[in-house]
Structure formats: C-alpha cells, structure tokens
C-alpha cells in the first residue's frame, strides 16, 4: 500500500483568537497568526483576565473594528463599540480609527459601576495613539465623569491642544484624584491603571510616567465608558481629544510588569497587521 505524506504544517488557533478572527473578517494568514500569537501571549502573561474590553482599530472599517477581543459578539452586552459622528478608518502602517473633534466618540456599553467589581480602586483604561503629535481638543481620550465639578472623573488625556496637559483622572480631580504633567508627543501606548486606593499610575509605552500614592474620594457614576471623549455624567458638554487610534482597552488594574508586557504585545500585534 502506498503511503501519502503531506507536507506543510497546520496551525491550531486559540479558540478566542479564532472567534475574533472570524468576527473581524481577517483572512490573511500572517495577520491571523499575529492575532493568535497576541491572544496566547495575553493569556500566558496573565493579562487576558484583566481585560474587560479591548479593540484592534486598524481593521479598516467600523464594522470590522467594533469587536471586543474578549467577546466578539455583535451585541451591547459584549461591549461591542458603536462609532458616533465623523470617523475615518485606515489600514496599513498608519492604520487606525481617526476621530474628529466636532462630534466623534465611541459608546462602549460598559457600565463602570455595575459591570466591574470596584472601578474606583481597580481599573485600567488605555489606547494607542498614532500619527499625530498634537491631538485636537481640550477634553479626554477616554473616560466618564462629572465634567462640571470634576467629582468624580475617570479618564485619560494624552495631550490637550492648548495646555499640552497629560492627565490621568482617577477620582475627584481637585482632591488628590488627578496626576498631570506636560506632554510633547502624543503618540504612543497610554495606560492609566489603579490597582489600589493609593496606587495610581499612567504608563506611556510601557514605562510609568506619572504616579500617585494619594487616596482620592469619588463615587463611581452609573454610566458607560466612552472612547475618544469623556462621557459627561450628569449630561453636559462632551469634551473630546481627537486623533488616530489603533488600539483601545479597559478592565482591571494592571501592575507595572503587566502594563509593560501588554504594551509589547499590542505593539507587536499592530506591527503585523
């Protein structure tokens, strides 16, 4: 009997990676492999369980970029993004989702008071901003809070247009709930992370750039996290920071090692897509 020996190899995809690849419509084998590797790395470094929502934003359209890697169902309950207002979608080296300063933001459908155990003391939110050294706007890249009083505020501003302020808000902005300095180049991976009532850090490209050991007051608002803007709770003016984004994430607090590893995984993945 003749035996046939088949050449080549078969890649066994992680089931979560496969679900995302299918939902996002990724067909290129190199890109599929990159997604699979990233998912496996997130799991092996203990980051996967810290993520509530994460989004690859260089898939070329709202329809392909909206899916949460943790649960790529097309439902609000899965925290699938809705893109509101003027957005542009790009692929390739500078691929990403670009918001406008007039009326763009994303609804995450993630309620910070009811869909995570203790947002005030244990959360992260972050993104990768690309292409532009100076975003447009005077608001935030992500967040929710009372924009009239600053109590409470949870959000990140990587570089405000007028002041160049770089900000991480983690409670009452006027009572030990804000860390801020001046930014010169708004491109990079930004992660704001709180792992305890007195442990707040803003990371840029995997390194801690702002730290606070203060304890801040703040009652977590009953509302959803917005991306590319702050969700004003109660309702008010929507304050945005408009730039091109290639990744967005939120979830539980990350340690310095986890933030550094997450940044490396994000950058490796995005470089391959």
């Amino acid at each position: 009997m003749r035996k046939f020996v088949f050449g080549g190899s078969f890649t066994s995809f992680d089931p979560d990676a496969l679900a995302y690849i299918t939902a996002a419509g990724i067909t290129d084998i190199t890109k599929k492999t990159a997604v699979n590797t990233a998912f496996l790395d997130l799991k092996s470094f203990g980051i996967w369980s810290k993520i509530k929502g994460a989004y690859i934003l260089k898939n070329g359209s709202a329809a392909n970029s909206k899916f949460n890697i943790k649960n790529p169902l097309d439902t609000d309950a899965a925290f699938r993004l809705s893109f509101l207002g003027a957005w542009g979608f790009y692929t390739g080296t500078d691929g990403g989702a670009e918001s406008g300063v007039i009326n763009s933001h994303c609804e995450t459908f993630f309620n910070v008071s009811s869909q995570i155990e203790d947002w005030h003391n244990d959360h992260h939110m972050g993104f990768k901003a690309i292409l532009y050294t100076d975003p447009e706007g005077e608001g935030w890249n992500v967040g929710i809070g009372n924009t009239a009083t600053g109590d409470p505020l949870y959000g990140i501003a990587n570089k405000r247009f007028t002041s160049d302020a770089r900000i991480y808000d983690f409670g009452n902005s006027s009572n030990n709930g804000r860390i801020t300095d001046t930014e010169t180049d708004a491109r990079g991976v930004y992660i704001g992370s709180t792992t305890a009532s007195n442990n707040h850090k803003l990371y840029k490209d995997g390194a801690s750039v702002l730290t606070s050991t203060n304890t801040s007051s703040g009652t977590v608002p009953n509302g959803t996290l917005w991306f590319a803007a702050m969700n004003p709770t109660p309702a008010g003016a929507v304050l945005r920071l408009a730039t091109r984004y290639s990744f967005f994430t939120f979830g539980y607090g990350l340690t310095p090692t986890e933030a550094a590893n997450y940044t490396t995984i994000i950058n490796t993945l995005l470089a391959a897509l």
Partner: protein
Amino acid sequence: MIVAKITQEQADKLKGVQFVPDNYFNPIEDVNGNWIISLQELVHCSVEFANSVELIEYEPIVVNFI
C-alpha cells in the same frame, strides 16, 4: 472648520441612524444653538438633503474644562 447646519427636526431624524455600517449620525448643538453635523456625515446624506443645508463655521460650546 466648516460644518453643516441642520434643523432640529432633521437632527431628531438623523440621530442614531447608521450612515455606514456601525457608524451613526451624531448631530450636536454649537454655541449659537444651531444643530450641526460634520461634512464627513453630510456626504452620506441624499443630494436633496445636502442641498437643503447651510454650511457654516463650527463654533463649539465654550466650557471651563477641568
């Protein structure tokens, strides 16, 4: 920055409507109380609709941001 001035009735009709899959119209008010949408959104409206609107300079609501 130029935007499209629309009526409140038009804003009510557009709000939450998809202009491409998973991207929704988001009419907002400017500092003068005008309802507006971006030109990026306007290009997805019908020719008749686009011809009915006035193009104006965007004047954002000024807030004492924190």
